[in-house]
């Protein structure tokens, strides 16, 4: 047995079921007592409708009500279950024996002098079966009770339609189809209550589900039942009033039927479409968050590893450097190559130390020293620091810096580190020279465009008004497509042969995230690479 309660809302259905069973018991008792004792309120008063319910039917309703009430919960103790099954069996027997009486013309003394109608007997027969098989479920998850109820519902519906459309009592499948309205009403109440008593099972699980399927079913089922009945009644009334003949009436009703159902389907489809869009959006966000989480976990692992490695490497480097210094002063036995060898060794130590410093930079949650800064000014300072390098490589600098750029809250030193890193990457991408284009501009709607992974407490209270964007483009050879998706991962480099450590862009990304900014690196269609950096512009700095 499968329960889908996690996806459905079932409490109101269960409550309705309990109330309905209690109402059936109450009405049954009132009808029985009222008729037996000839109470005025039942025979002539406001509950006179109950007088048409035969005493046998009233008693059987009470039994059915007790059976359902005792089994309002799916898990019940054995004595309770047995009493409930006994009551259900009695209901079933009343129905069965009365039908036998009708079928064979026997008198089995069911109901005494006044026999319940064959329709009522049929309903009791089915109701008894439904109660007896309440918690039975086939291996495929089908519930016989639901089949019984749906069959009985159709019988009831036919009887009700008979009343509504003023049909004279008629024979159907050998049964005289006629039932007192209150009796029919009580049966309908029962079927609904039994159906709703197990909201997590079978067909009801679909109807109560919070999924789109459940939503659609809840929208359509009432309309599918109610609309044709209403239209049929309208047709009948207008036909009786002589408004139009049968052919025209049928055409009009069919047309109305088509219009109303198309409307119903359209309305549901529209809502489903919106739900689907919302689901897709949520799914996309979930995927994105998952990817960020994986990335964060990966970074944490790499960071821990890097910190350990960096620390362990620095001690041997310290020994080597001290050794080199010692030999430089005391190892002079006249070998002319010794100074060169020692200089090479010292440089090798320095290079290894740079790598470990880079690793430590990555791993350290460095505190930012924030201040209101002019981004254009930081760019100019960074360019000044690398100008000689760029000139040496014949790289032309093209600047398009927005003049009245708002100040942003950044750690100047760290942002300089970002720009120098990117300028040096551009230099390496253009060994034969080229153009380095730097553009700054402001953009609005920060909330939609930035989803920073790292939020720092002291910045969350500030309101971001927009984005400051810096674009750095080179005219070089671009980044190989197989590397591009991993370009920010530590140790990913296109310059391994030239001594690249693969840490530069990882550090750049870290710094950007610490500033609640973002960085994106793409190959341009026309060749070369574009790095787009976005920083939040904060209202508090205005």
């Amino acid at each position, binding site marked *: 047995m499968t329960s889908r309660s996690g996806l459905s809302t079932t409490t109101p259905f269960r409550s309705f079921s309990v109330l309905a069973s209690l109402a059936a018991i109450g009405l049954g008792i009132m009808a029985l007592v009222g008729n037996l004792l000839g109470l005025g309120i039942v025979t002539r008063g406001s509950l006179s409708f109950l007088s048409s319910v035969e005493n046998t039917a009233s008693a059987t309703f009470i039994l059915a009500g007790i059976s359902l009430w005792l089994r309002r919960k799916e898990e019940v103790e054995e004595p309770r279950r047995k009493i409930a099954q006994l009551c259900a069996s009695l209901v079933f027997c009343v129905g069965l024996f009365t039908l036998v009486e009708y079928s064979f013309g026997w008198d089995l003394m069911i109901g005494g002098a006044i026999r319940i109608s064959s329709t009522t007997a049929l309903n009791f027969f089915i109701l008894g079966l439904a109660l007896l098989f309440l918690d039975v479920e086939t291996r495929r998850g089908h519930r016989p009770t639901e089949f019984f109820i749906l069959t009985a519902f159709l019988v009831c519906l036919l009887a009700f339609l008979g009343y509504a459309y003023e049909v004279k009592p008629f024979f159907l499948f050998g049964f005289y189809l006629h039932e007192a309205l209150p009796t029919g009403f009580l049966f309908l109440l029962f079927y609904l209550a039994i159906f709703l008593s197990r909201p997590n099972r079978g067909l009801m699980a679909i109807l109560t589900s919070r999924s789109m399927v459940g939503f659609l079913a809840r929208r359509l089922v009432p309309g599918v039942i109610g609309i044709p009945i209403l239209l049929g009644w309208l047709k009948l009334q207008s036909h009786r009033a002589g408004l139009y003949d049968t052919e025209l009436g049928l055409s009009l009703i069919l047309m109305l039927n088509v219009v109303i159902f198309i409307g119903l389907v359209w309305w549901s489809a529209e809502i489903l479409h919106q739900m689907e869009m919302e689901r897709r959006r949520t799914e996309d966000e979930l995927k994105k968050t998952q990817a960020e989480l994986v990335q964060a976990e990966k970074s944490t692992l790499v960071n821990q590893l890097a910190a350990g490695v*960096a*620390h*362990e490497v*620095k*001690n041997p*480097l*310290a*020994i*080597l*450097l*001290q*050794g080199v*210094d*010692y030999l430089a*002063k*005391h190892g002079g036995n006249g070998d002319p190559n010794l100074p060169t060898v020692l200089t090479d060794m010292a440089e090798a*130590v320095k290079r290894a*130390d740079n790598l470990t*410093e880079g690793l*430590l*930079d990555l791993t*350290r949650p*460095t505190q930012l020293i924030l201040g209101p800064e002019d981004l254009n000014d930081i760019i100019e300072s960074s360019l000044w620091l690398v100008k000689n390098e760029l000139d040496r490589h014949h790289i032309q600098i093209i600047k398009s810096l927005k003049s009245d750029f708002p100040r942003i809250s950044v750690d100047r*030193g760290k942002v300089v580190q970002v720009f120098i890193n990117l300028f040096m990457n551009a230099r390496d991408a253009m060994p034969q020279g080229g153009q380095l284009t730097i553009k700054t501009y402001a953009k609005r709607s920060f909330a939609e465009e930035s989803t920073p992974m790292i939020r720092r407490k002291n910045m969350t209270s500030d309101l971001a008004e927009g984005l400051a964007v810096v674009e750095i483009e080179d005219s070089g050879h671009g980044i190989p497509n197989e590397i591009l998706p991993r370009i920010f991962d530590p140790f990913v480099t296109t310059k391994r042969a030239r001594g690249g450590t693969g840490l530069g862009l990882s550090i750049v990304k870290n710094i950007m995230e610490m500033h609640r900014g973002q960085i994106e690196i793409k190959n341009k269609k026309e060749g070369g690479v574009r790095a787009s950096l976005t920083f939040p512009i904060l209202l508090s700095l205005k």
Partner: protein
Amino acid sequence: MAKIKILVVDDEEALTRMLKLNLEAMGSYEVCIENRGTHALEAARNFKPDLILLDIVMPDLEGSEVAQQVKEEPQLKNTPIVFLTATVTNEEISPMGGRVGGQPFLAKPVTVQALIDCIERNLKKS
């Protein structure tokens, strides 16, 4: 002229040997080596150094705890301590004048010249 007495406390034996060689080769330093943090205080009591070069991450006792012990010792409390460590980078401590939390720090690996400069600077201050 009396030599400047330096106590080097570091669990890296080869490094302490190198530091001793390099500093003593200058002629003006006398270096004592201790490779166990737990024995550092005892070594300092016996050696009575003018300055202590102290590693931070040691397996038996952290350098910061050794420094605490030294500062609590009446005869040693004014002895300057320079932390020599692989846990900070030069980039981090240079903007702070080579000091973290008021303590002088040297990031490994360090050249002999940088080491001597730092020792001289801190001896003058004391």
